[in-house]
C-alpha cells in the first residue's frame, strides 16, 4: 500500500528534479545575485537595489527595453498575420500546396546559425542579392544591417522567415479540423464571406491563434542567434535586445549582478505580458 501511494511521486521525481535544478533554482539564484556586485572572480559585494537603480537610469537599458518591445510587436504581428494568410492560401490539400508547405517549413529544421549566415550574406549592403533585386526594379538599396533605423526590422524579417513554416502548418491543420458542415450550414443561411470568417473560422481557430501568438511573444524575447551573428547588438545598439544585453553584461563585461538584475526585469516583463495576455485574449478563446 505504501508503495502505491509513493509511486506517482517517484514517477514525476526525475522530471521535476531537472525542472527544479535547471529552471526554478536558477531563477531564484538570479534574483539573489541581482542584489550583489560581482565579477565572477572576486568576492560578492552586497549592494541592495543599486543594480536596479543603475538599470532603470541607464539610457542603454532603456534603449534595449525599447528595442525588445519593438521587436516583439513587429515579429508577433508579422508572424501571426503572415502565417494565417499563408495557411488560408495553402489550406487545400493539393500537391502544389503540400510542396509549398514543405518549402516554407524547411527553414525550421535548419540551425538558426546557418540561417543567420545566409541572410547576412543576402543582406550584405554591397554584394547581397536583396539590394541587387531592389536595384533591378529601380528602388534604392537598403543598408539592411548597418542602418540603425533598419537593422532591427531586418532581424525581424529573418526570424519571421524562419518561423513562418511552423505557425503556418499549425494553422493549416487547425483549418482542417473545422467541420465542413458548419460552412455548409452557413451557405444555406446565405452568409457573406466576412461574416463566415468572423463567426465560424475565427472562433474555431481561436485556440490555435491563442497558442501561436503566445509562443511568438515568448520567442521574441529569446532572440539571440541573429543578433549574435549578424549585428552583435549594433549598429549603435539598435539591435541590442534584452537577451543579448544580459549575455553581454554577463559574459563580456563580467558584471554578473547587473546582468542578473536585467534578467529579473526580463522575467517580470515576460510574466506580465503573459498574464495580461491570458486575461484579455484568453477570455475570447472559444473552446469546443
Amino acid at each position, binding site marked *: 500500500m505504501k508503495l502505491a501511494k509513493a509511486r506517482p*511521486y517517484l514517477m514525476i521525481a*526525475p522530471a521535476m528534479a531537472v525542472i527544479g535544478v535547471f529552471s526554478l533554482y536558477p531563477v531564484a539564484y538570479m534574483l539573489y545575485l541581482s542584489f550583489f556586485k560581482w565579477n565572477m572572480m572576486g568576492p560578492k559585494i552586497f549592494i541592495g537595489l543599486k543594480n536596479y537603480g543603475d538599470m532603470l537610469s541607464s539610457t542603454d537599458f532603456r534603449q534595449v527595453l525599447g528595442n525588445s518591445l519593438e521587436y516583439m510587436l513587429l515579429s508577433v504581428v508579422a508572424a501571426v498575420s503572415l502565417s494565417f494568410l499563408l495557411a488560408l492560401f495553402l489550406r487545400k490539400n493539393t500537391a502544389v500546396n503540400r510542396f509549398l508547405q*514543405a518549402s516554407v517549413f524547411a527553414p525550421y*529544421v535548419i540551425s538558426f546559425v546557418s540561417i543567420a549566415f*545566409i541572410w547576412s550574406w543576402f543582406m550584405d549592403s554591397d554584394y547581397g542579392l536583396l539590394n541587387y533585386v531592389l536595384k533591378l526594379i529601380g528602388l534604392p538599396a537598403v543598408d539592411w544591417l548597418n542602418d540603425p533605423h533598419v537593422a532591427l526590422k531586418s532581424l525581424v524579417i529573418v526570424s519571421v522567415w524562419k518561423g513562418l513554416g511552423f505557425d503556418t502548418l499549425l494553422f493549416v491543420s487547425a483549418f482542417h479540423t473545422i467541420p465542413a458542415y458548419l460552412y455548409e450550414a452557413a451557405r444555406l443561411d446565405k452568409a457573406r464571406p466576412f461574416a463566415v470568417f468572423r463567426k465560424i473560422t475565427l472562433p474555431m481557430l481561436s485556440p490555435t491563434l491563442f497558442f501561436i501568438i503566445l509562443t511568438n511573444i515568448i520567442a521574441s524575447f529569446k532572440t539571440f542567434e541573429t543578433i549574435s551573428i549578424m549585428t552583435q547588438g549594433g549598429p549603435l545598439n539598435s539591435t541590442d535586445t534584452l537577451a543579448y544585453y544580459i549575455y553581454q553584461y*554577463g*559574459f563580456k563585461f563580467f558584471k554578473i549582478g547587473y546582468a542578473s538584475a536585467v*534578467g529579473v526585469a526580463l522575467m517580470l516583463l515576460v510574466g506580465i505580458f503573459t498574464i495580461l495576455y491570458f486575461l484579455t485574449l484568453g477570455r475570447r478563446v472559444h473552446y469546443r
Partner: protein
Amino acid sequence: MKTSGKAFSAIGRALVILAIAAIYIVPFYWMLLTSIKSQGDVLVFPPTFWVAQPRWENFGEALSAFPFLRYLLNSVIVSVAIILCQCLTVIPAAYAFARFSFKGQKALFAIALASMMIPAQLVFLPVFLMESRLGMINSYASLILPSATSAFGIFMLRQTFKQVPEEVIEAARLDKTSEFKIMIKIMLPIAKPTIATLALFTFISTWNDYFWPLVLTTDDRVRTLPLGVASLKMAENGIAYHTMMAGNLIIIIPILIVFLFAQRQVVKAFTYMGKK
C-alpha cells in the same frame, strides 16, 4: 464576366505561389551557388547567377576550418543522450500526471507548465555559474543535463495518455494486469506516435542549438556543429562568404535529407497538434 474573374484569380494565385516559392527557395539556391564560387566571384556586383567553374575546394576549406568530425560526433552524442534522458523523465511523469491523482498534483503540474516559459536565455547565467562551481563545464553532462527533461513533452504526452479510454484500462485491470504492465503493454504502444514526434522535435532543436553550447562550452572536445559553423565567419581577408556557405551546406544537407524522409511524420504530427 465570370470566366475573366476566374482567370484573374487563377493568375493572382499563380503569382502568389511564385512569390512564396521564390522567398523560400531562392535563399537556398543562392547559398548553393555561393558555396561553389571563388571569393572573387562572390564579392562582385552585380552578382552572377551561374558559375562557369565550380570551386569545390571551398568545401574542403570549410571542413578544415574547425574540427568537423569531432564536432559532428559531439552533436550526435549530445542529441541522442538528450533524447534518451527526455524519454526517461517525460514518460513516467506524463503517465503519473495523466492517470493518478495525488496530493499537490495540480500545483506540481502547473509548475512544470510554467517552466516552459523560462527560456535558456533567462537562466543561462545562473546555470553556468552552478555548473562551473561543480566543475562540470566543458563536459557532455553540462550540455545534457539542462535539457534532460521537456515540460512541453510532459504536457503533450499527458494529453495522449489521458485520451486512452478509461474502459480499456479497466478491462486490463480485470485481466489482472499489474500497473507496470499496463503502462508498458498498453499505454506506451498507444503513445508511440506522440513519443516519436516529440523525439523528432527534440532532435531538431538540440542538433541546431547554438545557445547552450556557446554558453557552457569552450573546449573543442565537446563543442557541437552550430558553433563550428559560426566559427566560419572569421576569415583572413574580409568575410569569406564562399567558405561560409560551403560549410553551411555541409551542415544543412544531412538534416534536409532527414526532413525529406520524415516529412509525412511531421505533417501527421501537426495534424495531431492542430486538434489540441
